[in-house]
C-alpha cells in the first residue's frame, strides 16, 4: 500500500517536472526538473528491475544533466538562440499541451494495463506522461538543448515501460550508453560553431 502511494507520488512528480521542462524557458530550471524527474523514474523502474540496475539509470541520467549543464554554462547568451521560429509558442499553449498529455495518459493507462497485464498502473501512467511530454516538446521546439531534453524525456518514459518487460543487463547497459551518448552529442552540438574566445563570457 505504502509503495503504491509512493509510486503515485512519483507519477505526480513526473507530471510536474515534465510540465516545468515544457513551460519554463530557463535552462537551469529545466535541467533541475529533469534531475528530479530521473529520481521519480528511478522509483518506477525499480518496481520491475533490481535496485542496482535502477540506480545505474539514475546515475546515468544525472551524468547527462551534468554534461549538458556544464556545456550550457560555458556558452554566452548571444551564442544561444532561444527564439522559437513558429507560432503558437506562448506559455498558455504549452500548458494546454501538457494538460492534453495528462488526459491522454490518464485515458490510455487502464487500456494498456488491460492489454499488457502486470505492468502496474503507476508505471504505465508515468511512462505515458513522459513519452507524451517528450513528443510534445520535440514538436514545439527547434532549440538544440530543448530537443535533447525532449529526447531524454521520451527515452526515460520508454525505459520505464521497457524495464517492465525486459530485464537484460545488456539492454540496460546499452540504454545507459544511449542516454549518455545523447548527452554528449547534445553538448557537442551546443558548442559546435561557437568561437573559443567567446566561451566563458558569462562564467
Amino acid at each position, binding site marked *: 500500500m505504502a509503495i503504491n502511494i509512493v509510486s503515485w507520488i512519483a507519477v505526480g512528480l513526473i507530471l510536474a517536472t515534465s510540465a516545468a521542462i515544457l513551460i519554463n524557458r530557463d535552462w537551469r530550471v529545466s535541467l533541475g526538473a529533469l534531475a528530479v524527474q530521473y529520481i521519480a523514474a528511478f522509483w518506477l523502474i525499480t518496481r520491475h528491475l533490481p535496485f542496482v540496475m535502477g540506480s545505474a539509470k539514475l546515475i546515468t541520467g544525472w551524468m547527462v544533466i551534468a554534461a549538458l549543464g556544464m556545456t550550457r554554462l560555458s556558452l554566452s547568451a548571444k551564442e544561444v538562440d532561444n527564439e522559437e521560429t513558429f507560432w503558437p509558442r506562448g506559455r498558455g499553449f504549452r500548458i494546454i499541451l501538457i494538460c492534453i498529455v495528462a488526459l491522454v495518459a490518464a485515458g490510455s493507462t487502464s487500456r494498456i494495463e488491460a*492489454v499488457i497485464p502486470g505492468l502496474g498502473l503507476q508505471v504505465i501512467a508515468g511512462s505515458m506522461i513522459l*513519452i507524451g511530454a517528450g513528443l510534445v516538446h*520535440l514538436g514545439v521546439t*527547434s532549440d*538544440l538543448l530543448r*530537443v535533447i531534453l525532449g*529526447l531524454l524525456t*521520451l*527515452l526515460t518514459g*520508454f525505459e520505464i*515501460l*521497457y524495464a517492465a*518487460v*525486459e530485464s*537484460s*543487463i*545488456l*539492454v540496460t*547497459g*546499452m*540504454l545507459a*550508453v*544511449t542516454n549518455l*551518448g*545523447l548527452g*554528449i*552529442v547534445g553538448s*557537442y*552540438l551546443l*558548442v*559546435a*560553431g561557437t568561437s573559443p574566445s567567446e566561451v566563458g563570457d558569462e562564467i
Partner: protein
Amino acid sequence: MSAPVIWILVPFISGILILLFFSERYSSLAGGSISIILALTALIFPIDTALLLGAISLKISSSVQFFGRSFALTTADGSLLVIIYGLSALWFFGTQASGIANRFVSLGLMIVALLTASIAVEPFLFAALLLEIAAMLVIPLLVLPFQKPGRGVVRFLIYQTLAMPFILFSGWMLAGVEASPGNIGTTTQVGIMLGLGFAFLLGVFPLYNWIPMLMEEASPYATGFLLWALPTFTVIFALGFLDRYTWIRNSPQLSSAIQYAGIFMVVSGGFFASLQRHIGRIMGYAAIVETGLLILAMSLKSLEVVNITFLLLIPRGFVLALWALSLSIIKREAYSLRFSEIQGLARTYPLAVTALILAHLSMTGFPLLAGFPSRIALWQELAGQSLTIAFWMIMGMFGLLIAAVRTLAVFVMAEDGKAWALNESWIQMIMLGVGASGLFILGIFPQILQPLLTNLPALFNHLGQ
C-alpha cells in the same frame, strides 16, 4: 579467437587508436588497410570451420558471450563481412582524396564495428540499440567543431532516436503475436509500431526530409557514408524480421504497405531530384530512390528477395562512394554545390565531373553501369507481380535521369574559349579512376558478385530458400 572479436572488437579498438595516434595523412591508409585485411580474413577463413595450416589447426569460433547475451557471426555471415569491410575500405581509402580529417576514418571504423555488432547480437531485436548508438557516432562527422549544426542533423538525431523505442517494443509484442496469431487487434498494433520504427530508421516518405537538408549543410563524403552504412544494416535488420516472423511475410496488407512505401519513395525521390538546383540535394534524393528500391525488393513475393536485395546493396555502396568523392572534390573548388556555382566545371575538373555523372547514371539504371543488373532484375520481378508498380518504378528512374541530364548540362556550360585543365590531384585521379572502372566492371560483368551472393540466402532460414 572468435569472430565477433575479429570483426567487431578489433575494428572498434583500431578506430580509437587511429583517433589517438595517427595523423591525418596516415589514417586513411591505416583504416583502409585494416578494412581490407578484415575483408580478406572473412574471405579466406571460414567461421566455425577448422583450417589446417601445416601442423597448425586454426579455427575461428562463431560466438562470444557479453553481459549474458551472445554475439554470433556464423559461416553464412562470411560473405556479408567481405562485402561490408570491402566497401568500408573503399570509403576509407577515399578519405584522403576527399580531404576529410582523420576522425572520419576512426569514427567510421567504430561505426562499421557497431553496425556489424547489430547483425551479430542475439536476440537480434537489440540491434535497434546498436543502430542508435552508431547513428549518434555519425554526428561528429556531420557537424565539424567550427560549424553551427543545421536543421538536418537535428532531425536525423530525432528520427533515429524515435525509431529505437518503436522497434524494441514491437519486437517484444511480436512474441505475443506469435503465440496467438488470430488476435487481429494486437497484430495491427504491432504492424503499425514496427512500420513506424522502420519508417524512421530508413527515412520512408515523408520522413526523409533530413537527407537533402544534410546533403546541403554537411560534408558530402560524410553524409554519403551515412547514407550507405545505416540503410544497409537497417535493411539486413529488416530482412531478419521478415525471416523470423512468418505472419509478417504472409500478411498481404503488410506486404502491400511495404510495396507502397517503397514506390512512394522511388517516385517522390525521382520527382524531387528532377526539380533540384543543388547537386548535393540531387544525390540525397537519389539515395532516397535507392532506399525505395531496397524496400520494393523486400516486398517481393519471390524466392529471389535476398539475392535482389544484396544485388542492390553492393553497387549502392560503390556508387555512393564515388558520387560523394566527386562531390567533395567539386565542393572544395566551388564551395557551394548550387547550379549557379558549378557552371562550366567540366573543363576544370573533368575527371570528378565524369565520375559524378557516371555514378548518377548508374543510379538511374543506365546500361553497362553497376546499377543496371540489379534494377533489371527487380523490374522483372515487379512486372510479374504488378505492372503498375513496375511502371511507377520506371517513372522514378526517369526523374533521376532528368536530374542527371540537367546536371551534365550545367557542368558543360563553360564560357567560350575556356581551356581544359586537369586540376584533380594524383590520388584523386586514382580513386576516381578505380571507382569509375568499378562501375563498368560491375555493370558489364555482374557475375563477379556471384561467389559473394551464393552464400547470402543462408543468412535467412526462411527467406529465399
